């Protein structure tokens, strides 16, 4: 299923923050994790992740470091800061509200 552009844009930040809450990670691995979590249904244009990651860094939600990978190449790792955790909690609360409201509006009783 192709996700609408607006929905992709809105869900990127909470999704990335949630993945980083699992532990430090880097761009390529984050994309893999999104694919895994969505059973391959959500596919971003990979490059579009980086503006978001850099914005999160600028806003001090995440911190970064360069590290040498097994293959001897430099990789930029991202990890969550305290502010990022708070921001994620905000997102979770808002998404839960949207989710609950939609479920009631659609009269879905299961799931």
């Amino acid at each position, binding site marked *: 299923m192709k996700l609408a552009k607006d929905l992709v844009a809105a869900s990127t930040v909470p999704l990335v923050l949630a993945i980083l809450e699992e532990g430090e990670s880097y*761009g*390529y691995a984050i*994309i893999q994790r999104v694919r895994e979590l969505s059973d391959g249904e959500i596919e971003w*244009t*990979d*490059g*579009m992740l*980086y*503006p*978001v990651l*850099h*914005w999160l*860094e*600028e806003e001090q939600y995440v911190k970064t470091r*360069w590290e040498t*990978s097994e*293959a001897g*190449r*430099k*990789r*930029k790792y991202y990890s969550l800061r305290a502010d990022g955790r708070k921001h994620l909690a905000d997102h979770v609360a808002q998404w839960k509200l949207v989710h609950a409201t939609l479920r009631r509006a659609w009269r879905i009783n299961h799931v």
Partner: protein
Amino acid sequence: MSNLETRIAEWRARMLRALPHRYETVAELEEHLREHCADLQRQGKSDGEAFALAQERIGEPQAIAREFNRMPACWRPGLILLPVLALTLAFFLGYYFWFTSQRLPITALMVASLVTSTTGFFGLVGSALIATTACLKSARRPLSERERLAVRRMLAKLARLSVVFIAIGWAAGTAWRSQLIWNSAWMLWSYHLRLAGLLASVVLLIFVHARPATSDRVRWLTAMLPFLVVLFSSFGPFLGFANIPVGWVCVVILLVGQVYFALPRFRIRIERLPDRD
């Protein structure tokens, strides 16, 4: 150079044209491309196929660049809150001290005032120093993203700290001034005028930093402003700056600035990047 390497080099050149001077970002994207290529090759794709697929997945350089420039730059009112609180509090305290100075421990307040305002002024000297160095360095070579970010954060922090210290210093000093220093109305007014000029320039600096969309050049230039006000408004005599010739201050600023930028934590980060250009 293998076929794949040539293609990646071409891709990197295109990426750098779309994102000028952003070597770190391009290096990060290149690492992504390479990793994806390697994965696809492991799945049995040829060099050419792997590169074509990975390149398609990562997206067009122009589109990525557009996305970078489009990221929301929102106001950060949190950054303004502390200075505003400090200034408001200082105003009321100063007002109170002015009229109750007879009953207050003048010497203690005077010492507190000198210590806090001098600390505040040193904060301003510090931010001017960092800004000047950033300006000079950027004339020689484009600063890396990490350097820009570090300078930005440092300036914002120093501006906020300075304004709080100067506000406290001003408030604490009111009692002392109302009794001991001036009996001439002009001295008093000129002091407050100069202080207002200084505070205005610091407030400008804080606003500039609370707005992420501001260009780095503007940030740096605004960071030099409060220091220039201090230097040229004869604030000096009250703080001991007058004994230091302007030229020496500038020399020290430049020297310390050079050292600051040579610090390993900046240098290493730049050198650590993939060096394939």
